[in-house]
């Protein structure tokens, strides 16, 4: 027996929202996309009863919804901007720096990295979500981590690898 819709929402809505924010959404867009994700998930919940794999399943929906959003935004000629006004001031600076750094990553590297760091998925789960092999996931996460280290920590005086 799977979770009820309310349990599913309460347990995962912050993770989905933060993942979408870190991907580059404005807060209002991230909220809209989060809504879409849970509407779709709850519509399909009756046929999905594997509690152990709920989060990868949700994150796959979120990722697909994000890709649809990017495609439609680019079709309409809109830019995807991030709004950090909901954060506390010190966090705003961190988020802006992180956003710039994440923006320089290869899109798939960024996806894979955020599924690991924000959603907490394992390599095998990420591989399923992104249709990759676990080895490819490991390599992409490491590559993203090294690139972020270079961009985030070098300005603070650290030397890159």
């Amino acid at each position: 027996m799977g979770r009820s819709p309310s349990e599913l929402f309460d347990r995962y809505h912050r993770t989905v929202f933060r993942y979408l924010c870190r991907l580059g959404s404005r807060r209002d867009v991230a909220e809209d996309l989060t809504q879409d994700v849970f509407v779709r998930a709850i519509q399909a919940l009756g046929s999905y009863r594997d509690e152990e794999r709920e989060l990868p399943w949700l994150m796959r929906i979120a990722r697909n919804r994000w890709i649809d959003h990017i495609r439609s935004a680019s079709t309409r000629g809109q830019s995807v901007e991030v709004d950090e006004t909901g954060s506390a001031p010190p966090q705003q600076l961190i988020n802006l720096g992180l956003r710039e750094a994440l923006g320089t990553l290869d899109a798939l590297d960024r996806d894979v990295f955020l599924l690991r760091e924000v959603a907490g998925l394992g390599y095998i789960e990420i591989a399923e979500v992104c249709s990759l092999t676990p080895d490819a996931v490991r390599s992409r996460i490491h590559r993203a981590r090294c690139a972020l280290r270079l961009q985030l920590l070098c300005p603070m005086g650290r030397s890159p690898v």
Partner: protein
Amino acid sequence: MNDVFEVLSALLDGEDVDIERLMGVLATADGRDALADFLRTRQVVRADDADPHPEFVARLRSSLVPRRPGLVRPALAAAAVLVLAFLGGWWMGVHRDAARAPGAASPPAVTRTLTFERNVDWHDVP
């Protein structure tokens, strides 16, 4: 050099790692710096205070969670059936009686008249 440190990434991610290789990397200052930097990067990424607005959460939660299947709707449906059945029965009864007794709505026509006269064919009872 980055590939050498891939074992550090795997360690951070809770994956199985080659212990000898890990010890070799951590034996170097660069390896230790890399591990510390990866941890700092993780802290930056996870130090996210972004939450959806509470109003949004409340609204979305109430719209997503199906209402508790109460008895109101079935009770209303049952009441509607009863009312319809009553009205239908009344209507059919009225029309059936009307069909059986044509002209029942007006008094019957007079066919004969009886006349009684005092002291002739009836008398008072003392």
